[in-house]
């Protein structure tokens, strides 16, 4: 490994290939049960995806840097367009005839590139409020457009990855605490003692971090106000609205509506036990008990047919992929590359956690696909593009010297 020479980044492509293979096996099973050939169609997407992966891995990252805002603008326009003329079962598709794309998937990559480019520009200093505001605006625009589609699951990825990139980009610790204090206060408002303790902690932290005591107290009062407001707002909601929120957080209170998928999915995963029921042998999968088993709930197919042995390997592969991306983010010398790698890592990690959490009943049912494994062209192509770019960037860090 010599300084300045290109390394071959083989880990990312290898992990990608392994996960894709797992996905195809699971999809074959699910596809057969549904009587529709999702399997063959996925192969076509895979062909295009591989081409994009290789292409983007070979392109110098400066070209990607140069195109990032253009790409961002195009995706924004597509997001507006999908609101106006969206088709498909949920109105999230855009396209003509048999070919359609889901712009909300592309938006993830667009936001990562735009934010990375913004932060890597030395004129922008995220420690300054107006630059932070501009940064937040870049993320909020596509977030809002996806949220009103409505596609809650996909939209939530964006604030998460934006926060992670900003955190890596050196946002002041105080701002981090300020942002985090709001949800913390809202959650802790269930218990008055907890609320007091949390607010006390926030004020103390602010004071220790060098904020003037008066300002820290104002902050504490504001947080207290939010804490007081939360139950008031909650009581203002109609019964059915509260019911909906509760069902969202814990679907099992509605076993035949929102909870149906979840219960069936848990039965599928749990009944797989340690070694699984075997390929094409899952009675939940093959019996058609699992809704959406080729897309959002494909992990339950793996769980049922391959058991804990299979699921732990899949989780392990994803963990390796995420950690490898984060490791590369630390190693690369270009700021832009580092932010992109970190954005891709957090996007992947978030989606894997939310999706597997959903199929195993610890996260709400939001409709996020499992990266590289769920059926779906737009999701797969976007991920292949992300990982292709990451591979290219990962190959260009200088050795320790």
């Amino acid at each position, binding site marked *: 490994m010599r300084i300045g020479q290109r390394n071959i980044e083989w880990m990312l492509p290898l992990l990608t290939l392994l996960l894709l293979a797992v996905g195809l096996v699971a999809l074959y099973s699910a596809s057969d049960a549904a009587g*529709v050939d999702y399997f063959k169609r996925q192969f076509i997407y895979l062909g295009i995806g591989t081409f994009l992966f290789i292409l983007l891995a070979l392109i110098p990252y400066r070209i990607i840097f140069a195109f990032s805002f253009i790409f961002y603008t195009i995706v924004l326009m597509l997001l507006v367009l999908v609101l106006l003329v969206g088709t498909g079962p949920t*109105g999230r598709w855009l396209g003509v005839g048999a070919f359609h794309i889901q712009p909300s998937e592309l938006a993830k990559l667009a936001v990562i590139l735009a934010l990375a480019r913004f932060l890597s520009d030395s004129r922008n200093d995220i420690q300054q409020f107006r630059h932070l505001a501009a940064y937040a605006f870049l993320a909020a625009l596509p977030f809002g457009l996806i949220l009103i589609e409505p596609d809650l699951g996909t939209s939530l990825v964006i604030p998460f990855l934006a926060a992670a990139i900003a955190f890596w980009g050196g946002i002041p610790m105080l701002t981090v605490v300020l942002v985090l204090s709001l949800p913390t206060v809202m959650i802790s408002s269930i218990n008055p003692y907890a609320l007091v303790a949390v607010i006390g902690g926030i004020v103390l932290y602010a004071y220790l971090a060098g904020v003037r005591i008066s300002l820290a107290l104002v902050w504490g009062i504001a947080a207290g106000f939010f804490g007081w407001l939360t139950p008031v707002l909650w009581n203002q909601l109609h019964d059915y609205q509260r019911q909906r929120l509760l069902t969202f957080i814990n679907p099992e209170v509605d076993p035949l509506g929102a909870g149906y998928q979840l219960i069936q999915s848990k039965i599928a995963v749990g*009944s797989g036990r340690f070694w699984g029921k075997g390929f094409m042998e899952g009675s939940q999968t*093959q*019996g058609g008990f699992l809704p959406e088993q080729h897309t959002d709930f494909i992990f339950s197919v793996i769980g049922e047919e391959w058991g804990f042995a299979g699921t732990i390997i899949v*989780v392990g592969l994803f963990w390796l992929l995420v950690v490898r991306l984060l490791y590369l983010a630390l190693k690369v010398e270009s700021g832009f590359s*580092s932010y992109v790698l970190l954005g891709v890592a957090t996007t992947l990690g978030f989606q894997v*956690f939310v999706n597997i*959490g959903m199929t195993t009943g610890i996260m709400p049912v939001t409709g996020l696909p499992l990266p590289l494994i769920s059926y779906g062209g737009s999701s797969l192509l976007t991920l292949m593009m992300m990982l292709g770019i990451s591979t290219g960037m990962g190959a260009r860090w200088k050795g320790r010297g």
Partner: protein
Amino acid sequence: MSETAQFSRLRLFFLIFIMTVFFLILSYRLLRLQVMQSETYLQQSETNRMRIVEVAPLRGLMFDRNQNLLVDNYPSYELMVVPKAIHENPAAKDTLLALIGLEEEEFDRRLGRIRKNLYKPVRILHDVSFSLYAAIEERKIYLPGVSFEVHPKRAYLYNLLTHTLGHIGELKESDSQRRRGLEAGDIIGLSGIEQVWNDSLMGKKGYLYKEVDVVGRIIGDIPNVAPIPPVEGADIILSIDLELQRYSEELLGENPGSVVAIEPATGEVLVLASKPDYPPETFANVLTQEQWKALQEDPDTPLIHRAVQGVYPPGSIFKMGVLGAGLQTATIDTNWSVTCVGGYQLGRRWFKCWNKAGHGEVKHRTAIESSCDVYFYLLGLKLGIDKFHTQLSQFGFGSKTGIDLPHESEGLLPSGQYFRKRYGENWSEGHLFNIAIGQGEVLVSPLQAAVYTACLANNGWWKTPHLVKGTKHGETIFPVDEVETHKVSLDSEVIDILRRDMLRVTEGPRGTAKWLYDPRVQVAGKTGTAQNAGEDHAWFVAFAPYDDPKIAVAVLVEFGEHGSTAAAPIAYKVIRKHLGLDEETWQQYRWKIIREQQAAREALEETPQE
């Protein structure tokens, strides 16, 4: 990173730590589900299975304007078999095969249609008889994995209105992506009223929550869970008059042709007949390739709804519109006259009048009454294409009427632009001659002809024709929204002239339909002949009673040659039937009455008129 500070590196390690915690949470969760609690879930997967069974809603019924039921539903029992259950139980298979009388080979072929998914029930028989249903239900305990699904089916009670009512079918996978809120396999209207009014008729699916055993056999309901009942579709009340429709279709017989009748004051369609047709249940069942091919390639084109999709040159029924255009634009006045010598020489071409002997000096009255072509050749020439097009298009020629049926034809009303495009700048006056008598390029559907006649009957008020009077939810009837209506820009004097001239067609001494004269009702009409490569098509349009029109009719008989002989008698019979005038009495005393009337009329003709 160049600006990487120790502080910053810590942040990245922190992120790696967070991510790792996330993945540890997942791993622990999987460990709990798949190892620690797996026995519970295994048990649940083997015994306690829940299946959501969709319940198709009852599709709305259709009634005619007098509340006669036209379209009904009936349950069809579909025999379903779970492949895994029947494979594991050869005795049950033998019992079943003996009951349904199917060869084992054929049975296996049907079972195997869906690939290896052994748990999903497969349809073996469609619409089974009640006796077979009862026989299988009796032996149910010996037949694991055998069940029935009830699908509502459509019954079209009369062999009438085939094209208009349309048909239903399953939404195709490829189309489902374009329809929000619908899934592939949902039953939707695919043509006719069933298609256009699908949203009202369809209703909403319901759901049952059933417990099923390992082979997918339903054990029972899930306790303490209320099923979601389906919402029935709304019934639809058509403006069609069943008796009049039946009569019209009988009158057309197997002649290709069409009858359209409209209530002028409302635009409600009373009759919409098109022949030849096909049995209404044709598309309810699976068509074989040969059956479909035969229907498509039939030279009589039974699949075409001639009333709204068939277009023909209007011939002389167009002449009221052309005369109206002449008078309204003051191109001519009522005294304008031409001399008809049986035709007109234009350049090198002789344009003949249908009457070779000629009509002599012709004013507007005779021009309509005896349908003189020369009068209209010259009127067309004087009008010019632009005025011609503007004036005639207000009757709706050349555009869709907006009736609540799919795939309506626009017909064709040529404009100057059309001719320039088609024939270049020097298109000839001959084209104008032709369209002035409703021949050549002009094309009109029977529905457009009826709407035009209804508009004249209704003193120039044009109403969008429509087939649905209202929707019925339970016992409450909701009338449909007001239809689009406008007044054509013809002065009432002009319309009065047109109406009076139409009356002369059936009452005047030279009227082309005077032989049909019925003293019990004043009919304003017009005959027409659409020139055709083969035998000509016959047209007749009419409204009656003259003073207070209750019905406007357009009749087209393909290859009928003469409007007065082939089409007009049908129109008269439809009018008489609608107005409650007995047909038999008329046929019996017809000649006696006509002779008396003729004498009286001759006496009248001798006294000078204004």
